[in-house]
């Protein structure tokens, strides 16, 4: 059996090293509250299974957020943030895996300055080699794929090798650990 507390601990440590902010949430409610405190522009909320199941978009709307659920191509450029689920994660590098074949997932995680990712800590694998299994299953399930491994916010060191956060992608990555969201790595 996986040692979940251990995996979670090393995941959190590794993700924080690369500049992600990791928040332990008791439930979705706490995650929504966290967003409310941080988002005042529009929030892209694409369709994904665990979000649908838990009525995420509605909850966010009820909490007073300006939630965008369609027409991302036109909305994304001006949106402040995007929120998605996570298929699985890797502890050793603090990495998230997002099955992003649906274009809205990609737009929500590339264009806005902030990305909120909801991760069920039951889906943390030890490392990328162990995670080849779900990676392969995703390839077997879908005929076409766009799968993103995301480790911290976008970064560059191209000018004088000075690490600078947020060049083309999100400047902030918030990982919200929400238990009992979905323990299936094939499901976001």
């Amino acid at each position, binding site marked *: 059996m996986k040692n979940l507390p251990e995996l979670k601990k090393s995941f959190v440590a590794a993700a924080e090293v690369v500049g992600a902010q990791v928040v332990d949430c008791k439930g979705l409610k706490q995650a929504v509250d966290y967003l409310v405190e941080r988002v005042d522009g529009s929030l892209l909320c694409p369709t994904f299974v665990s979000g649908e199941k838990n009525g995420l978009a509605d909850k966010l709307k009820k909490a007073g957020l300006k939630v965008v659920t369609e027409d991302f191509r036109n909305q994304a450029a001006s949106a402040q943030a995007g929120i998605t689920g996570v298929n699985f994660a890797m502890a050793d*590098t603090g990495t998230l895996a997002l099955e992003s074949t649906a274009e809205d997932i*990609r737009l929500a995680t590339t264009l806005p300055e902030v990305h909120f990712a909801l991760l069920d800590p039951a889906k943390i694998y030890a490392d990328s080699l162990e995670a080849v299994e779900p990676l392969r299953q995703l390839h077997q399930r879908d005929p076409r*794929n766009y799968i993103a491994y995301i480790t911290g916010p976008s970064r560059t060191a191209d000018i004088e090798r000075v690490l600078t956060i947020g060049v083309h992608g999100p400047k902030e990555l918030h990982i919200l650990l929400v238990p009992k969201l979905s323990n299936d790595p094939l499901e976001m």
Partner: protein
Amino acid sequence: MNKQRSKDYRQRIDKALATPKLQDALHKFGDAFLVARGNAFAKYDFEAMRDEISQMKTSVRENHAELLQQFTQNAEAAGATVYLAKTAEDANNYIAELAKKKGAKLAVKSKSMASEETHLNIALEKAGTKALETDLGEWIIQLAGQRPSHMVMPAIHMFKEEVAELFSKETGKTEQAEIAHLVEVARNQLRQGYLDAEIGITGANIAVAETGGIALVTNEGNARLASTLPKTHVALVGIEKLVPTLEDATKVVRVLPKNATGQPLTSYVTWIRGAVPCDGEEKDLHIVLLDNGRSTLAESPQCQDALNCIRCGACANVCPVYQTVGGHVFGHIYIGAIGIILTAFFHGLENAAEIVRACIGCRSCVAICPSKIDLEEIILSLRETIGEEEGIGAGKDIVFRKVMRNRKLFHGLIRAASVMQKPVTRGESSIRHLPLFFSSLTEWRTLPAVAEKPLRDVILQQEQEVKKPRYRVALFGGCANDFLYPELGLDLVTVMNALDVEVFYPQEQNCCGVPALYSGDKETAIELAKQNIDAMLEGNPDFVLTTCPTCTMALQRDFVEHLKDNPAWAAKAERLAEITVDAAGFVVNQLGAADQFKQLAASEKVTYHDSCHLKRGAGVWKEPRQLIETAGHDLVEMDHADRCCGFGGSYSLTSHPEISKRILGDKLQDIAESGASCVAMDCPGCMMQIRGGLEKQDSKVRAQHTIELLAEALRQKK
């Protein structure tokens, strides 16, 4: 040799050397890189990981046709169009045609070395499509109208003030030379490009046969945008990027960022298979597989390992030559050690002819390569090819062919030199200008005089009282020990005798052949290998000892390599390789005798310089340190102890003295900062360089061979 080409090359070197800021930046990067990399690999077994990658990549090379077919089938089944481009021109034409068909005015590009290789931007421009680089470094380079000077960090040679100037021109405002601000400017300036472009062009770090997908390993997020927003995605991928399975791909991904920049992982790894959704339609995905010389490279037995490269760029990061002159000198499109090799195959031998000689042979690149490529050996073999094609220079040709192969003539001439230099030396052990074999390049280091009597003569007069010899060993002196530092050979006899080992000096031994080999004259090297094998095996020694690690590598590695297909010689070469060992290693490992020197020495603060070929060739670095410490010295480590001293034989004397001088300067600084009064080493070449540099600076620090320190300790005991 092409005169104009050489002249241009010399000018590039001078220009680079006149930019101390660049050297400073590259040195700092080299240091920071090693620290970050060490942390990134802390929990991992790098040696095991690189064994795996090297085996996997080798098997890919051997099964290339099948894997290529598998990849193509799977990619096409997922809706991609796959095109195999034979040449750079072929790839460019295909992409330019496509752009025309799409009526594309703008293509956004994420970083792709393959597109630099083919000069794709120029081809697109001709077809009426503007190519916009979106990787920050590439964009800077594009605005400056330059080419990348590093494969991973294209603009590493530029400074924020220059970037601010370029960006100001672009925005029409004065942009502050402040890095965070400049990054923000790039973000804003490039954003619209993704939305406007009809085509997104990326490279790929990996192509996975199992899935028909590609993987992109990036930090900035621009490749994600370039592969998402435009309706058409073109991925230009070298055919060597193929791997069989997702596990193999993962193993590459795991190592690549750690070895490239010391990052545990890049911000993004993007796995793309097939025509994914795009604005309510299907993406038009074209995968252009680029051959352009790779198949030819695969067929070259000496060079084919270079195809195992995963383009981490580390071979440049650690290279003392790269750190001194940068990628615009030490490279063409691809830079550093791997750049030399790829240039020869992708851009023609002509473009590699100068840089192939710029490598000093220190093997730092070999030690750091995650694909375990013996880059230095490949570079040597290319030097040979170029030597055959272009000649190695008339002067050298005569020395090697007519003189060195004839031992009596060669040694006779050196003896004559000893006499001729007399009036100049006035009895000093070092002189400013040496006739005959050494150039007059002594402004920055003194050069030793040729000894009055070589080791081969004086050793015969040395009495050896060994009652019950444990071993009888033959000493392979090498030219420097023999003719410049005979006292070193005598010290070796003293040390060995104290350990009950008898030493003899085969008189027929000749130069180890490395100078000829490094100059591209393999024929002479082979002839010398044969002479030496016969000379050293005669008398049936238990071991053959060396005091020069470059000779050690010749006897252990090169002779075997030269003669492996020669039935009359192969076994003899193997035998000599087996019994050859460097002196310090012999004392510690074969004799287990380090303790016999315990606390004999009058303690001194000693720092140790690792000779390239001893540490990275023979794998010996602990042993001399153990001996020095056991003898009672206070051993202090200098920074960069295993960085090359810049000697490299004719490298420092004739071919690249300016670069050699800078590398020596770095070493002398590290020695001074260590606070030691003695720097020890195990190579007469390093002694010549470091001692000469110290003398020139009037430094009080002495440079000694470890064996000399041991003999000294024995004398101090008495």
